[in-house]
């Protein structure tokens, strides 16, 4: 097994775990955590394809990942703020209970 294949296997495992968490958890914070896992699996792929790709001398992959982490941090902050606001309003963070806007 090549190092690239090993990296991809880990990243896809991480993505699957994150997806499962995002889809099955009821708690909004845990759903957000699942999403973070899937995002990091994608970052891992960036690194892996950069490091074992044809031009490792350019720092393109690293740059993408640093951007991605920054954006993810901002996104997590917004997501947590939303969850806090919803919690204050509905007194719960269970996503299946927040059905006010359902038609």
């Amino acid at each position: 097994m090549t190092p690239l294949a090993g990296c991809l296997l880990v990243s896809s495992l991480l993505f699957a775990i994150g997806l499962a968490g995002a889809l099955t958890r009821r708690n909004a914070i845990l759903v957000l955590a699942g999403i973070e896992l899937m995002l990091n699996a994608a970052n891992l792929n960036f690194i892996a394809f950069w490091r074992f790709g044809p031009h490792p001398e350019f720092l393109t992959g690293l740059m993408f990942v640093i951007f991605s982490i920054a954006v993810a941090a901002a996104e997590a902050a917004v997501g947590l703020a939303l969850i806090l606001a919803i919690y204050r309003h509905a007194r719960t963070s269970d996503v299946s209970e927040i059905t006010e806007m359902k038609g």
Partner: protein
Amino acid sequence: MMPSVSPVWIVQNLWLIPALPMVAAGLCALLKRKERGLSAGLAIGSMAISLLLSLKAFAEALAHPAIQVKIVDWMQFGDQWIQLGWLLDPLAAVMLVMVTFVGLLIFIYSLGYMAHDDNFGRFFCFLSLFAGAMLGVVIANSLLLLFMCWEVVGLTSYLLIGFWFQRPAAAAAAKKAFITTRIGDLGLLIGMLWLYSQSGTLVFYNKGFGCLEQGALTAMATHATVAGMAVSTAIGLLIFCGAVGKSGQVPLHVWLPDAMEGPTPVSALIHAATMVAAGVYLIARVYPLMSGAALEVVAWVGAITALFAACIAVAQNDIKRILAYSTVSQLGYMMLGLGVGGVAVGMFHLITHAFFKALLFLGAGSVIHGCTEEQDIRNMGGLRKFLPVTFATYSAGMLALCGFPLFAGFWSKDAILHSARDWDLSRGPFYLGAIGALLTAFYMTRQMYYVFFGPQRLTEATITPRAVAKHVPHGNAVEPVVSPRPGEVCAIEDPHESPAVMTAPLAILAFFAIFLGFVGTPAWPWFQNFINGIGVAFAWSGFSEPGLLSTMLISTLIVFAGLLLGWWFYGRKPIVRVTDPDALETLAPPLFRALGNRLYVDEIYSVTVIALSRFLAVFASWLDRFVFGGLVRLVSWTVTGVSWLDAGVDRFVVNGGFDEGCREVSRGGRLLSRLQNGRVQTYLSVIAAALVVLALWLLWGHRG
């Protein structure tokens, strides 16, 4: 006698003669009931003008005895024009003068007779309409026009017989007259249609193209139909059916005696002088069509009618009914005359009869009027003293009817008997006619003795009304003889003479009843020659025709025998009491009863023809109700069933299917809407599943 289209004014405007009384009738119909004088004036005035025009037409016919015609187009059928028209020939001219003259006298007489009636105006309206239609029959140059006027005549006859329709008997008699004559008219109508299909025209004379002219006649005479009979004979016999109905010949004579329920002037005008003679006139008019075989039938029917009706007249007790049967009998003579002797012989008797029979009826009306509506001759008696003018004129009419020598009826009846005696085919009609003449003299003598001689029985009769007449138990016969006219008070009073307005026409008619015969004596046969369109000269040698004098002798003897027999039975011992039995009844009760019941002809009809038609009516009603009605009901039930079925299908199949479809759609919607539950996680699960499937598919595709 080549017909020609004449430019003469009177021929061009001959239509005015029937039109004037018709217009008068129309105006009378519009007048208020209380305008009595005006309506009578209109009727009489129009009749007088018609008489003047008729005299002018008569003068024209005297000057030019050829047939003069005027044809007018009436309406178009496809490429053919139906033509109507009128004609003037001696036959029509004589009839015109007779109808207008007798009609005028009867109109004037009606002024007196109907003076107390509420519906005076209606009476004159109907009389005028009748006169117009009758004159139309006379001048018609088309069988179609003749038929139309003929039917109007029938209608007015119906209206006038039923003039006092409050009386059930009058209403029934009117219906009977109308229906009975309709039976004959059916034959006439069929004959007319056949004639049209054979000759293509119904115009009598039209410059060689009419249906009574040589071309059409030859075609019809050579064309044979069933049993080798020529078409013209068959058509002639069918037309004769109409004449049988109208002129009261056996077997359709039953309506005429009942028609006496109408007012007496009506009986005189319509049912004695003019309308019933229309049948005779019709045969005279279509005479060229009548071949030997058809004339044979005419002669026999006439002879049988002459005797048959005379027999019945012997045993009647109603003064008008005796005259009615005598009319039937005399019409039989006219038919006999047409059959054996030709147009002139029949028409001569028609004209003389019109005068003396109108006289007799008006005299009878005067008697009835004088006796306050009494009509039973047994209740009269001795009226000679009370009604001298009526008695004198009535005697003249009676002698003319009997054929007393030198009176009008003598000459005309003698001509008929003479022709019948000379008839090649059979002597039968002559014997029938001769016996009829004997009976005529007998029953008229009987009537005279009952009415005018002996003691006066009227007062007795009014005080003790006769029990229901036992001779004539049949319906409307004599039973309620004393039936007060509506709107008139019936008071017990002595018989009285009628006013001058009634006796003057009697006197004029009596004059003609005595002297009219002299226009057609064997020595000076002006009338016959005029009808036949030839000149005339006076010659005593006319009497020397073989067999003529002996016939005259025979008929004179017959008349005297009849008068003597009448005297023997009724004059020898005066009839004193109302309840005295009839002399003939004591002699032969069953015979008298049978004759009194009119030989049961009505009864025979009621058990045969009427029963049959009633059975047919019941059968038709049954057929209608159950068979055709059943079919209709079946169809309606089928339709109802189909519609029920349709409604069921609609309700349960179509509607159900539609509802089911709707439910399915809505269920599908609900099912689909469950997918869209608003939970992001669910949506994402689907996406994830799709992603997995997509990844597997890609991997599968690149596995090798």
